[in-house]
């Protein structure tokens, strides 16, 4: 009966206008958050750990160096590394250290033995965000763990094995192959078993634990330690133009397409942020429409609210129907917005999948939507409560 009285001045057009506007705003926000979590989830993927914030840099190799002149020009000297560390966009710098001794690898594939000279590199563990099992070396029970570039496996499988009549190998098989490494230098020559513990499509080298390489260089290296020729740099924002400027100035090269990928990711983030802002603006405007509508409604029903309270109705008793109305509208908007956003994400998910980005859980996006609706509803209810209370006394 109270509802019959109070619903009278409710304007369905205003309510519909609000619901539609808020629906669009909220769907955009939830969608954008979903999109953002989708694309940022790839940054945490094992394979692409170098993609987001890590750059691998080296110096350009010139013809002179090939000819043997100025051979140490591709090394990074300590003062260069120090200068790099001083840049505001640099968070951390790690060096690739290389083996200063001879490595010979031998293995048996399909009954045929093969052996080849090899090299080792290592980077500090903190720059590895994959942590394969057994990523350590114990001289007492020697077993060298290796992370191999996927590219090498591809080269072998499709470039070498097919033309030489060798069996093709899967990653799993490769990991079980018994490998022997013969390390030679400083008057020693010793053979250790080794095992491939992981493949990386980003780390373009034959990587061993830093701890092992330090130990091996100590034992097999005759000369003094080499300066690193490659650095891994953790940067705060890969899209920062200052980075490219600095690299150009000193003639540093960024390995592979990582930088391009990073920039693509950076621009995706920027675009997502813009979309998010648009959604937020629409939602805020919709919120104001609703507030205005509520104010008008309560203004028109001022006398009725007052008279009901004159009969002994509590402010909550008279406002309850408005709370229910707001609650139902906002809840429907939320549900519809989530459905719309997820529907949109089901559209882009296969497309992102094509470029190797897997869909993420929609939980964050849904939580963001729920939080926004909760805040809106709370403010709505509080302002209705305030107005009704103000109408209690004449």
């Amino acid at each position, binding site marked *: 009966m109270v509802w019959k*009285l109070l619903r009278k001045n409710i304007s369905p057009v205003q309510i519909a206008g609000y619901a539609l506007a808020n629906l669009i705003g909220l769907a955009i926000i939830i969608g954008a958050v979903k999109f953002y979590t989708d694309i940022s989830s790839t940054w945490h993927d094992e394979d692409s750990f170098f993609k987001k914030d890590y750059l691998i840099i080296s110096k350009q190799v010139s013809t002179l160096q090939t000819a043997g002149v100025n051979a140490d020009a591709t090394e990074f000297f300590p003062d260069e590394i120090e200068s790099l560390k001083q840049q505001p966009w640099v968070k951390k710098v790690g060096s690739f250290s290389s083996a200063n001794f001879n490595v010979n690898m031998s293995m048996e594939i399909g009954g045929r033995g093969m052996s080849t000279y090899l090299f080792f590199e290592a980077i500090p563990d903190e720059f590895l965000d994959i942590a394969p099992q057994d990523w350590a070396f114990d001289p007492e029970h020697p077993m060298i763990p290796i992370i191999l570039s996927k590219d090498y496996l591809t080269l072998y499988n499709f470039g070498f094995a097919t033309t030489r009549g060798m069996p093709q190998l899967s990653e799993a098989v490769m990991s079980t192959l018994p490998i022997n490494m013969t390390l030679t230098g400083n008057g020693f020559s010793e053979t250790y078993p080794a095992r491939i513990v992981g493949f990386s499509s980003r780390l373009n080298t034959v990587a061993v634990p830093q701890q092992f390489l330090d130990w091996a260089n100590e034992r097999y290296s005759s000369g003094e330690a080499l300066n690193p020729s490659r650095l891994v740099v953790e940067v705060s924002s890969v899209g920062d133009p200052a980075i490219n400027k600095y690299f150009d100035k000193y003639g540093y090269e960024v390995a592979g397409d990582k930088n391009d990928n990073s920039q693509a990711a950076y621009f995706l983030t920027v675009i997502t942020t813009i979309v998010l802002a648009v959604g937020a603006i629409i939602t805020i405007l919709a919120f104001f429409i609703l507030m205005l509508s509520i104010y008008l409604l309560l203004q028109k029903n001022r006398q009725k609210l007052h008279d009901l309270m*004159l009969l*002994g109705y*509590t*402010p909550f008793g008279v406002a309850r129907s408005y709370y229910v109305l707001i609650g139902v509208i906002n809840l429907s908007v939320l549900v519809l917005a989530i459905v719309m956003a997820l529907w949109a994400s089901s559209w882009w998910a296969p497309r992102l999948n094509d470029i190797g980005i897997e869909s993420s859980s929609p939980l964050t996006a849904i939580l963001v939507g729920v939080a926004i609706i909760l805040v809106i509803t709370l403010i709505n209810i509080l302002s209705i409560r305030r107005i009704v*209370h103000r109408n209690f006394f004449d």
Partner: protein
Amino acid sequence: MKINTIKLQQALPRVFVGAENDSHVHVSEVWLRDLTLTRPGHYLVEAESGTGKSSLCSFIYGNRRDYIGRIFFNDTDISTLSIKQWCEIRRTSLAILPQEMKLFPELTALENIMIKNRLTNHYKEDYIMSLLERLEIPDKAHQPARRLSVGQQQRVAIIRALCQPFDFIILDEPVSHLDSRNNLTVARLIAETAAANHAGIITTSVGNALSLDEIDDVKPTHIKL
């Protein structure tokens, strides 16, 4: 809250501040006096227009607070009551019939009564229908209030005011549009209900007063506002 006394202590509507020496305030037995109303007493407040009779009702009912001086329920200054307490009082201790009746025009006569009664669960619908019959408007029960004459609206509003337990009932010109026969019927109903509640009656008039005088055993106190 059981209200046994309503006490006015030097009360005066704010609009009269500065006019304390005007004749109507000067002769008033209410404004700027100490006045105690005790239940189950019956009080007939007689006033001329513009002397603040509806203001008095609104002050006591907690609807308006634009007065100076103090008003007490028992020993409680009513300006200290919270909204929650007022709502409670309006459901259990104080009944009111405002002069403008405040019926909702879009609701029927019966709905107007039930909107109060469902709050207090005081009467069964059958009993309310019998009250409408007693006041000779049973056929108006399902008519929208806006279609009723002022006299009919007054009777609906009176029944609505009775749909609750009360210690005092405040009636602001309850019978201004009723003939003397209806006036007496209404007066009897109110006096009976008040007696059943052991309650006080405060009624105002500018001429056509509620016929409490004509009921046996009822001796209302006349107060000049």
